C-alpha cells in the first residue's frame, strides 16, 4: 500500500523540494552560527587544540 501511494506521487517536483530543504538548512545554520552570543563561545572553542600542555612520551 505504501508502495502504491509512492507510485502516485509526482517525483519530478522532488528536486525543487530538495533544494528548498537545503536552502532552509543552510540559512538556518548561518543564522545559528552568527547568533549574538556565539562569538565568545566560538572564541573559546577555536583555541581548544592549542591548549594542550601534555608532558609526555618519557618516564
Amino acid at each position, binding site marked *: 500500500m*505504501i*508502495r*502504491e501511494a*509512492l*507510485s502516485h506521487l509526482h*517525483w*519530478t517536483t*522532488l*528536486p525543487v523540494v*530538495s*533544494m528548498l*530543504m*537545503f536552502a532552509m*538548512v*543552510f540559512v538556518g*545554520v*548561518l543564522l*545559528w*552560527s*552568527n*547568533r*549574538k*552570543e*556565539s562569538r565568545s*563561545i*566560538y*572564541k*573559546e*572553542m*577555536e*583555541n*581548544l*587544540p*592549542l591548549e*594542550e*600542555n*601534555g*608532558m*609526555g*612520551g*618519557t*618516564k
Partner: protein
Amino acid sequence: MKDVQETGTLERFSYDDGVVKKFTIATIVWAVVAFLVGIIIAMQLAYHPLNTGLPWFSFGRLRPLHTNAAIFAFAGNAIFAGIYYSLQRLCKARMFSDKISNFHFWGWQLIIVSAALTLPFGITQGKEYAELEWPIDIAIAVVWVAFGINMLMTVVQRRVKHIYVAIWFYIATFITVAVLHVVNALSMPFTMIKSYPIYAGVSDALVQWWYGHNAVAFFLTTPFLGLMYYFIPKAVNRPVYSYRLSVVHFWTIVFIYIWAGPHHLLNTSVPDWAQTVGMAFSVMLWIPSWGGMINGLMTIRGAWDKLRTEPIVKFFALAATFYGMSTFEGPLLSIKSVNELGHYTDWIIAHVHAGALGWNGFLAFGMIYYLVPKLWGTELYSKRLANVHFWTATLGIIIYVMAMYVSGITQGLMWREVDMAGKLAYPDFVQTVIRVVPLYWIRALGGVVYLAGTLVMVYNVYKTVKAAPATQTNETIDECVPYVRKPLFGQAGMKLSHRVLEGAPMLLAALVVVMIGIGSVISLAPMWMSSSVVEANYHDAMVKPYTPLQLAGRDLYVREGCYTCHSQMIRKTVGDVLRFGAPSTIEDSKYDRPFQWGSKRIGPDLAREGSKYPDLWHFRHMRNPQEVVNGSIMPSYGWMYKEKINFGLMSKKLSVMKSLGVPYGDEDVINAESWAREEAKKIADGLNAEGAQITEDREIIALIAYLQKLGTVQGVAGGAK
C-alpha cells in the same frame, strides 16, 4: 544529560599513546602495500602479460585489493591514529577503554588481512568498495561499533566544557559509516564465503552508490576534515581561521553529501528525477567544500613563512589545496553533460587519485611527520628527507593525474566521435584502448615516483623511532581543571541552546542521524518504489531469471572482477547507443544480484553482449584475447578451461535466489543441477563441433552461457564491436 562547570581542583591524567603508535605504524605499512599493488595493476594495464596467467594475480582480482588497501587500510589506519591522538587531547581525557582500543586496532588489522587473503582468490561480493564477503562484513560492523562506543564514551567523560568541531566530524563519520555499511552489506549467505545481496538491479545500484559515494564522503572526507581542523592549527600554532565557518561547513556537508550518490548513475536507467537530485546536490557541495578548503588554507595565514621551512605545513597546505581541487572537480563531473564525457573514462581515475593521493595522502603524511616525533619523544630524523618526500610525492601525483586526464578525455572524445555520415569514427573499441596505452605507462611511472617518496618517509620514520630515548613510554601525562556536570536542561539563557546542540555528544549524534536520514530516505526512494512503479511500467513477462548455468557463469564473472574493466550499462547517450545498442533498461538487470553496471570501461560495455558473437568467439577470446582482438590488453583466463563448475551448489543457489523473490519454481530448484548439466552439454557439443576441445564441466562453459544471456531480455541486438 549534564552540563559541566569548573570545580577548581587540578587533575592529573594520562593519554594512551600506545594505540596511536600502533595505528601510525599500520598506516605506514599499509600505505606501502596499497601503493605497491596500485603500481602492479597499473603496469598490468600497460603490459598485459604481467597478469602472468595466475588467477590470484590477475587485474580483476587485484584491483579491489588495491582500492580496499588504499581506503580501509591506509586511510583507515591514518584516521584512527589521528582520532585517537586528537580526541584524547581535545577532551582532556584518556580513551574510555584501553581494551576496546586494542580490540579495535587488532580487529581492524585482522579485517585487512582477511581482505588480502580473500580478494585475490575471488571471494568477493562484486560491489565496488564493498567487495568483502559477509563474515568480514560482520566483523567490520562489530569493530566499527566498538570504535564508536570508545569514542563517544570518551567524549562523554571529557574534562573540558566544549566539544571541538573536529570531534563533530569524527562523530558524524562513525554514525554515517555504520549506517552505510550495514544497509549496503545486507545479503543472504549460501556458503561460508559466498552470499547474494538482498537488493537486485537498479535497487542494488542505488544502495551501492548511496554507500559508495558516501564512503568517499564519510570515510575519506569528514574524518580527514576533522583531522585538518585539529592538525593544521597545531602545525602553525594558530587557531582555525574561522570557527564559525567550520560550523557552517560541518552541518551543510553532513546534510548535503548523503544526497549526491545518484551522480554515479547519470544517464542510466535510474529514474531521471533521482539523477537530477543527485546532480543538484553534488553541485551544491561546492559551497561547503570550498568553505572548508578556504578555512583550512587560511588557518596558515600569518605563518606562510613556514611553508618554506616546515615540511609538515607544506603537506597540510597541499592537502587542503587538493581537497579544493577534488571538490571542485567532483561537482563538475556530476553535471550530466560533463559526466557524459567523463564517466567510465580515466578522467574519473585522475579525479579519485587527486583526492586519495593529494588530499588523504598528504594530510596523512603531514600528520605522521607531526605525530612520530611527539609519540616517540624525539626530533624528526631529517627535515630534508621530509622535504624530499614532499616534492617527490607532488611530482608523482602530477605525473599520474596528468596522464589520466589526457587518457580520460581522449577516451571520452573517441568513444563518441562520429564521421560525416553520422557513424562512429572509431567503431572498434580496441582503437580507443590502443591510443591510451602509452599513457598507462606514464601513469605507472607516476605511481612509482609517489611510492619512492613514501619509502623515503619510511626510512625517515624508522631513523626517528630508532633515535627515541630509552625512557620513552606509551603515555603522555597532562593535567587540567575539570568541569563537573550539572543538568543540561532547566537552565536559563541563550547559552543553553549552544550546549544542547554543540555540547552534548549524544544529541549531536542524534541530529546527525536526522540530517543523513532525510537525504538517505529520498535518495533510496526509487528502490522502495521498484516493485510498484517499475514492475507496473515495464514488461515483466519478458524478463526471465537466469538459468542455473547462467547464474554460475555470472558468479564467475563476479569472481574475476570483470566489472573493474567492463560496464553493463548502456547510457541514454548517442555515443553509447551507436556503439553498444539500445539503452539499458531497468528490466535488463532485474535479477542481477549484485548489479554489475560497473564504473569503468577499460574494455567495452557488455550489457548487450549476448548473441553478438558465437560461442566459439568467446571460447577463443577468453583463452587468448589478443588472438581474437588485435591490440587488446585483456588478460587470459586460462584457468577457467581447467577448473570445474560446481554443479553441486546449483540447487542451493536457486533456493537462496527464490527466497529473495526470484520466480523460480520448486522443480527448478530441485532439478537445477540436471538443468545446468544439460545446458552445459549443449554449449560444449556446439563448441566441439567447431573444433574446440572442451568438456561440459569446465567453468568457461558457464561463463559463455552467462555472456550469451546479457541484454537478450528484449531481443535487442548490440551495436558496434
